[in-house]
């Protein structure tokens, strides 16, 4: 649970920093009569971006809990019996999707609509490739007959974790398709920028989650760090 508590602590720090700017020590009964006792509000993120952030905070905890459950259930010496090279491939596809989205965002910002749409398509293709690769991994586990058996449950955890992560990726693909369709079909695709920015945030978050999960399930250069965070002692 260390990772979960750290995650919660990080959220608490964010919340505390934000609350610290909200004048919680004010005596509100003394400022009556003024519509703007704190001055004009500063710039804020768009509602959609904030909403996505809140959702990602919640989804992030979901994965943190899965990591904690994995650490409690699976012994440290039990890696998933699967060829890690396939997973390195899918990981690089996910990185590629994020990079393409960043490219699309930059293109949209510069006003290059066609470039942005092309980059979106590239990102979607990489996302599909990622899911395809994960599906191959599931099939390999299934054929080995250990997908849901096996006393250390590492393979079962692999399927569960990648399935939940894959569902989030699928939702991201739907969003990407929608944005791409809007870019390609709308006669005046002027303001794709914010939508692309939302997609980028979402895909970056999913990439970050995946890197943690990948490090947990396989031996990667950063696995030691994750082990230290979720398996104290």
């Amino acid at each position, binding site marked *: *649970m260390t990772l*979960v*508590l750290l995650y*919660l602590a990080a*959220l*608490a720090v964010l*919340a505390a920093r934000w*609350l610290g700017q*909200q*004048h*919680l*020590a*004010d*005596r*509100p*009964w003394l*400022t*009556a*009569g*003024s*519509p*703007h*006792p*704190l001055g004009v*509000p500063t710039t*804020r993120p768009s*509602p959609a971006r*904030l*909403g996505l952030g*809140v*959702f990602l*905070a*919640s*989804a992030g*905890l*979901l994965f943190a*809990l*899965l990591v904690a*459950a994995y650490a*409690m*259930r699976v012994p440290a010496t039990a890696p998933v019996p699967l060829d890690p090279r396939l997973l390195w491939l899918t990981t690089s596809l996910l990185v590629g999707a994020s990079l393409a989205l960043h490219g699309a965002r930059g293109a949209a910002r510069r006003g290059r609509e066609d470039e942005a749409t092309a980059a979106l398509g590239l990102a979607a293709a990489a996302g599909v490739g990622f899911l395809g690769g994960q599906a191959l991994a599931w099939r390999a586990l299934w054929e080995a007959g250990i997908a*849901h*058996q*096996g*006393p*250390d*449950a590492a393979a*079962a*955890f692999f399927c*569960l974790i990648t399935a*939940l992560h894959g569902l989030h990726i699928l939702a991201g693909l739907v969003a990407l398709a929608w944005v791409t369709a809007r870019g390609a079909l709308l006669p005046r695709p002027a303001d794709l920028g914010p939508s692309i920015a939302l997609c980028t945030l979402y895909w970056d978050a999913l990439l970050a989650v995946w890197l943690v999960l990948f490090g947990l399930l396989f031996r990667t250069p950063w696995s030691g760090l994750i082990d230290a965070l979720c398996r104290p002692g």
Partner: protein
Amino acid sequence: MSDAITGPQDGSALLPEADELYHPHSWWTRYVFSQDAKVIAIQYSGTALAIGFVALILSWLIRLQLGFPGLAAFIGPAEYYQLITMHGMIMVVYLLTAVFLGGFGNYLIPLMLGARDMVFPYLNMLSYWIYLLAVLVLVVSFFAPGGPTGAGWTLYPPQAILAGTPGQEWGIVLMLISLILFIAGFTMGGVNYIVTVLQARAPGMTLMRMPLTIWGIFTATILALLAFPALFVGAVMMLLDRLLGTSFFMPAILEAGQRLRYGGGSPILFQHLFWFFGHPEVYIVALPAFGIVSDLISTHARKNIFGYRMMVWAIVAIGALSFVVWAHHMYVSGMNPYFGFFFATTTLIIAIPTAIKVYNWVLTLWRGDIHLTVPMLFAIAFIVTFLNGGLTGLFLGNVVVDVPLSDTMFVVAHFHMVMGVAPILVIFGGIYHWYPKVTGRMLDARLGQVHFWITFIGAYAIFFPMHYLGLLGVPRRYYETAGLGFVPPSAQSLNAFISLVAFVVGAAQVVFLFNILRSLKHGAPAGGNPWHATTLEWQTPETPPPHGNWGPTLPVVYRWPYDYSVPGAPEDFLPQNQPDPAHAGAVP
């Protein structure tokens, strides 16, 4: 309306493209697939109260068996365990959570903050329909082969998915699916509430000018978004254990002498996940109740809430602490016993901000001008029952005292008092308080008094003596205690008494239902602000407020929500959108 002051428009208070949503085109989009938070609130509350009545009937059957064992031949042990499981699950998740966040949250957040609607109305509508689907799946499980699950509302594996527990075939599967749906639906609503509170407040509505109701609902929503993932993970993993034969929670196990294919799983892992959700869940229900009660007391005592800042800080502190106390439900679960030191300490620390809240409610009454209206009666009854339940929580939170009392009737009495009776009294109080805004008519006060006295005195008479059964050692979740030598016959008489009171209290809820339906047509017209309250929802240009709430211009907030009996003001209240006490006379 004179107080719909044209103020500086805050552009970000509202999504520009949302304007076009304010014109529902047909009866269907107005009342059924509505995106108006107020209609969604009524849909949420109506559905939750309907399923709540089912839970009430289940509780009658439970009491029938406990009070008069053997009288109802159709309640065997299996049926009994199904009854208690479904009663508990419905009350905690599908009634309390849904009414406070889906009902009160949807209705009050936009109105109290001076917003036109939730920020994502479409998502809000989706949230309700998924909730309804979750309720329907739950109801279907009653009629599934083998009936609903009888695993206890905590659904501990391995028991929950093994033969030997009723509802093992379909009940548990449908239960888990229903929970997963509920969580998905709630997440949509929850994101909405948070973004609305953060970004759609009317000009001048700083955080420290928000009514405590909003603080409570806002904090509870954050807790819910962080607690439900744990239940989600637990439910998905158990579903896989049940359907695909994985061994997340299942160790090597014998079922009726046969070795199952499971192995290596950890039942305690599920308990950690469950209570990581389960304890914040208590505060998901309690914090909105705290907030609503603060506003009811302040309004009906005509006095500002005492120590508003402390109240806000206490809500935030309770919310933060509620994530580090979960294992106090697991002192005797076989987990590492040294955790007990940590969790007992955190649990008792959380009592301090909670106690401060109780003090401040009571001190708000001091030198007030107390109108004993029906909502006020419910609010005061809440303080009594919550105080009682909170104090018995100190028994159970203190690790050694919990050892003899855990899983006895003491626990049952404690949590019914603190998160059953107390929040439900607040729900009633809130309904009596806001019904005039929702419908434009008052609820009948005399019927309300009848409903209140029977419910309050009755509930206290049910649950206070029950603690003593627990002290005696009577275990919870026992189909019958016959044959237990340490349970004297007098305990059975007490059980019969409790059951009789429970039947009366349950029947009294019909009075409430009748009142609600009758007053729709025959209630006295309420006007816009029958309680002379200060908060924004009472200052709408029309009552009931139409879609969009505020007419052409948003209200501007000039003061905190508790300017009651301000010295020098002509009336004993100053609405939040009142710029200057001198103009107070102009308020209708």
